[in-house]
């Protein structure tokens, strides 16, 4: 049997995946069996599989689409909507000013699940305590469980509320300058650490022995925490990962954007039919 690598099924395969030879099926095949043959079956074409949300923030308006299948689209109202602005790669970002913020639906993270939030950031203020991303909104008894922003002196500042005691942990970086784009990230590993990364480099951490964070019962916000700490600056490509990423990953994410030699375009040839 000749292997048939290009015969890829990208979606649902109902009624069987392969009827002869051998099969390599990566996802489920409802109502079907693999009887043989040679086939590669990939199900659900979603480049962002494995992410909680991916928000490029490249829209001009009050809706900001999540590119994952979770559809955790951000929304704002006209009065407090950020303004589309140039960002990394000269592609759009959102400029937050005054009381601008974006509301996100409740995500799917479990309380015991490690996570990472990463984004591109350019601050446009100093001597203000501001928030990039906050998970949970303290209204009507809902708790705020995590926030990522900067301090009065522009330290990156991650804050998480853990355990039944609702212990608050903070992790800081050194101050970062305003007016310059940075790749920033914060991650939490249950029973390990809350970490802060700058351009893929670990720049701050705190040990967090708890195994669960305070459960979130409502949505999240970009550009503010609860009703305040409104950001002055740009955000772009905000991603929530359902795992705690390390420097290996985040440095690659940073380099993928910023280092021209990370992914190199080679020659283009006219495709050949065999």
């Amino acid at each position: 049997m000749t292997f048939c690598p290009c015969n890829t099924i990208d979606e649902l395969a109902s009624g069987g995946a392969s009827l002869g030879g051998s099969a390599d099926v990566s996802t489920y095949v409802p109502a079907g069996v693999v009887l043989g043959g040679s086939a590669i079956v990939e199900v659900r074409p979603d480049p962002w599989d494995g992410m909680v949300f991916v928000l490029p923030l490249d829209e001009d308006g009050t809706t900001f689409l999540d590119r994952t299948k979770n559809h955790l689209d951000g929304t704002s109202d006209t009065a407090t909507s950020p303004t589309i602005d140039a960002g990394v790669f000269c592609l759009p970002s959102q400029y937050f000013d005054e009381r601008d913020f974006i509301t996100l639906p409740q995500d799917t993270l479990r309380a015991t699940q490690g996570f990472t939030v990463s984004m591109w950031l350019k601050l446009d203020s100093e001597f203000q305590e501001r928030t990039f991303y906050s998970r949970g909104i303290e209204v009507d008894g809902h708790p705020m469980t995590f926030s990522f922003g900067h301090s009065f002196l522009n330290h990156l500042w991650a804050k998480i509320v853990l355990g039944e005691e609702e212990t608050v942990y903070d992790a800081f970086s050194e101050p970062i300058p305003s007016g310059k784009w940075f790749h920033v990230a914060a991650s939490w590993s249950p029973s390990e650490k809350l970490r802060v990364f700058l351009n893929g480099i670990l720049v701050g951490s705190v040990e967090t022995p708890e195994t669960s964070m305070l459960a979130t019962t409502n949505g999240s916000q970009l550009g503010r925490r609860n009703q305040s700490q409104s950001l002055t600056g740009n955000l772009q490509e905000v991603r929530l990962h359902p795992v705690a990423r390390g420097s290996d990953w985040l440095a690659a994410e940073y380099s993928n954007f910023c280092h021209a030699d990370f992914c190199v375009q080679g020659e283009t040839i006219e495709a050949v039919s065999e």
Partner: protein
Amino acid sequence: MPFDDNIFWNSNEQNAKKLLQQGRKWGKKPEAQPDFAPLSDKLQEVAAKLAEQGIWTDPQVSEIEAYQNFVRVWDAVERGDNITLSALSGGYGYGDSYDETAEGGVLVGGGSRRSIIYTEDGTCGEVEYLDDDCYYTDSDFDSHTVGSTGQVHITATAFFRECTLNLYDSDSTSITYYWTDGTDYVELYFSEGLIRCSYSVDGFIPYIAEHVPDDKPDMFNKLDFGFSFTWYDINVIWDGGNCVFGTLPCQKVATGGLLAGGSAVVLSGDVFHEVADGGVFAGGECSHTIIAWESATGGLLAAGEADLEVVQMVGGLVAGGSATVSTRLSGMSLGGMLAGGECSNTKIVLETAAGGVVAGGAATLPNSAGYLYRTTLTIAAEQLTADLHSFYVGKVVALPVELPLDSTFLVTDIHGNIKDHEIRNFDGSTVWIFFRADLSASIDNEFFVFSGGNP
């Protein structure tokens, strides 16, 4: 003129041509009552089956005439009707245009012809038997006007003696066709010129095609090219024996299969615009390139051989035999892409393929995947400090040529495994593409971005 039964069942091209020649001569019947001959045994069976299915029960709706082994069924077809003709099996089909559903086979053999005029506004319902009018009494059919917006889909056979048909194209310009049954050719006079057509099937079709007036391309769209399409339709609907045909205007539903057997030689690119439930080719061989724009439920090729160019197939692409899938295999292929035999494939199934991709046999696939250009992306191992699983690579790719903004792309690794991707920004000359891939920190990671062609 008697027919040779064997002609219908032989499977070589010459006999098919001979059959057509006989059909032309046979068309010079006296204008009196047709010379009915007793039904053959096979046609007796056909008649019985038709009666069972109710086709014959109302003489106002349909009637049948039998000339030895030639059966003609005329149906008063209205839009939306289901026409069941599956009882007709074997023999030679003189063609019809089916703009609606015909379940159980368009014409599974037999000798059948029917002419229908449709109007494009959806009301349709008008059924005319042009071939009959022309055939029996020239004077009975002097002209027929279809309306300024009407789409005329005329089915006629080579049984004309002489008739004139006045039609109107979309801008109400009168176009006059003269169909003259000469000694060995038919002449079609357009207001813009002359088309002279041989009766020979393999000569007739290209000859017509070469003489389409340059300034009237839409005329053929609007009028469906009248006579010439007749031939195509005739031969598309075929069960058994040889089938030699050209462009296939199979525009609507044909449940039960288009070609149920025999071998088919298609002389030019064929287009199945719409649905063909039950399969396009159910058997035999097909030296053929198909552009199937829509679904062919039940399979495109159930057996035999074919060169295929497919967009969307429901029910399987190739159920047996061998196929050269040259281009454009994208979209849905429910029931399997290749259920048996061999497949030399330059394409991939981009979307749903339920029921299997390769169900047997061998398949070889080049890496072009139907796109014109392949651009290599490399992430050197030294760029990474650890292997990364399901990393989201983003890359602004400079494209080799300016591409339409509705272009699609394909990302694979060097083994041809497709990587899910998202186009974030595409301006025709550059594309910011994201794809998910495992990255190695020990060996360089190479990927291909395919562009151009939009398979």
